[in-house]
């Protein structure tokens, strides 16, 4: 059975994400079958926008609950504060960019700021993308560093394996290429460097740092494999890895390295990113709920 053995909250997140992706697949089939773009455009504009905004809200509420469970002086309290702030930035960002400003339709949803403005975007859309992208990542990176340090202190730091280094090397190469393409495009079009585009240039280096943190955190979390705490940090690692995949996919299509048809699966990656970001605090809240329940079954405690 789907997500058997997972806590209820995770099952709900998994089911919601699964149903949303099925809906997306249906929209894709209808689009390719009828040639009517309104199907996929409507899905991305309305269902997609609602999904990422609703999941950002879930992520924020759960992260805040996790933060409030920690006392002053607890090692991970600042980390959960930063994670809550990052979730708030994502929620505000998606609300601005997806609710108050129409998306670009068939160009695909934009869930992160990019230095090269492929399409003219409304100011609130640009602010939204900056908040949900670089600002949220800027807050998340020190949080993951604090978690990594906590693992280190218990002698549980994860050592990267050759496969991790390979992934890191490949991602570095692609991200440097992405940044370089952004610079070239900006010079060619003589576009001034404003705050939005400046933050857009930050995304790639930040993601590279986050990818390194995510890979080490994933290795550390594997020492607690099967436990709720390990799964919480594995979910954050997955969210970062998927964000990298989404960004690289978008870049490769934007600059014409791969055909536009490849972009289609990339749209769906962003929904998985949202689900993974919501699953992280959901696992933590479940761990806290269990610890506070004590040792007896629910009816007894």
């Amino acid at each position, binding site marked *: 059975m789907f997500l058997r053995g997972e806590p209820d909250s995770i099952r709900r997140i998994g089911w919601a994400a699964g149903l949303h992706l099925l809906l997306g697949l249906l929209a894709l089939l209808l689009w390719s079958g009828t040639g009517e773009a309104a199907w996929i455009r409507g899905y991305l504009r309305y269902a997609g926008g609602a999904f990422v905004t609703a999941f950002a809200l879930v992520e924020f509420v759960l992260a805040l609950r996790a933060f409030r469970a*920690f006392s002053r002086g607890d090692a991970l309290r600042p980390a959960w504060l930063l994670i809550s702030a990052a979730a708030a930035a994502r929620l505000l960002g998606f609300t601005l960019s997806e609710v108050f400003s129409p998306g670009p339709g068939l160009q695909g949803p934009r869930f992160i700021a990019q230095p090269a403005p492929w399409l003219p975007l409304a100011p609130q859309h640009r602010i939204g993308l900056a908040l949900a992208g670089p600002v949220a990542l800027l807050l998340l990176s020190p949080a993951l560093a604090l978690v990594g340090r906590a693992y280190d*202190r*218990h002698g549980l730091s994860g050592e990267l394996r050759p496969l991790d280094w390979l992934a890191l090397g490949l991602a570095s190469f692609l991200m440097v290429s992405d940044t370089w393409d952004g610079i070239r495009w900006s010079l060619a079009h003589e576009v001034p460097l404003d705050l939005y585009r400046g933050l857009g240039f930050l995304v790639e280096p930040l993601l590279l740092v986050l990818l390194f943190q995510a890979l080490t955190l994933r290795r550390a979390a594997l020492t607690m*494999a099967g*436990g709720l*705490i390990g799964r919480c940090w594995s979910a954050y690692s997955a969210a970062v890895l998927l964000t990298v995949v989404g960004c690289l996919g978008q870049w490769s299509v934007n600059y014409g390295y791969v055909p536009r048809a490849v972009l289609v699966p990339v749209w769906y990656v962003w929904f998985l990113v949202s689900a993974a970001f919501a699953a992280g605090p959901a696992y933590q809240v479940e761990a*806290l709920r269990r610890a*506070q329940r004590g*040792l*007896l079954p629910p009816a007894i405690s």
Partner: protein
Amino acid sequence: MTEHLRRLLARLGRRTHPGVEDLIAAATGAGEVSLLAVYHLERCVRCRQRVASMRRQWEEVLQLTALSSEPWRSRDALLEELLALIGAWDAETSAAGPALAARRQAVHRAVARRLAGELEAQLGRLGAALAEPARRQEAPVQAMLARTGHLLSTFLGYKATVRLSQAALKLTGTAHKR
């Protein structure tokens, strides 16, 4: 039984709440409920509610035997679980004393098993690895908490860790009175 005696029992039963042994007997069916307690239970809503609650808890522990994935299937394990539950009821009525002391070792093992399960749920295979050697020690619950307390405090926070530790220690009857 004469009508006079019945009235006398009813009057006495109204005044005195039955002891935990009678409540346990009424809730589990494992033993005979005294006549005085029967008369009391007919009239006291609070005691009836308590018996109903104890019965639900008892049935829940019995259901543990049906769970194939849980380590409560052996007869000894189930017995320890039942003793732990009775220990908790004893503690509620503050009539623990020598009865609980006699059952202490079994209670400790039952609580240790539950704590080990909880640690595994929280910390995964690391939790299982830390709990296993502690389970063989004389005071397994305390040993487990000593081995994992710092780790839990880091990842769950101080408050949740104290709550979990207090719950475990309370079940073993070794929690400090606050």
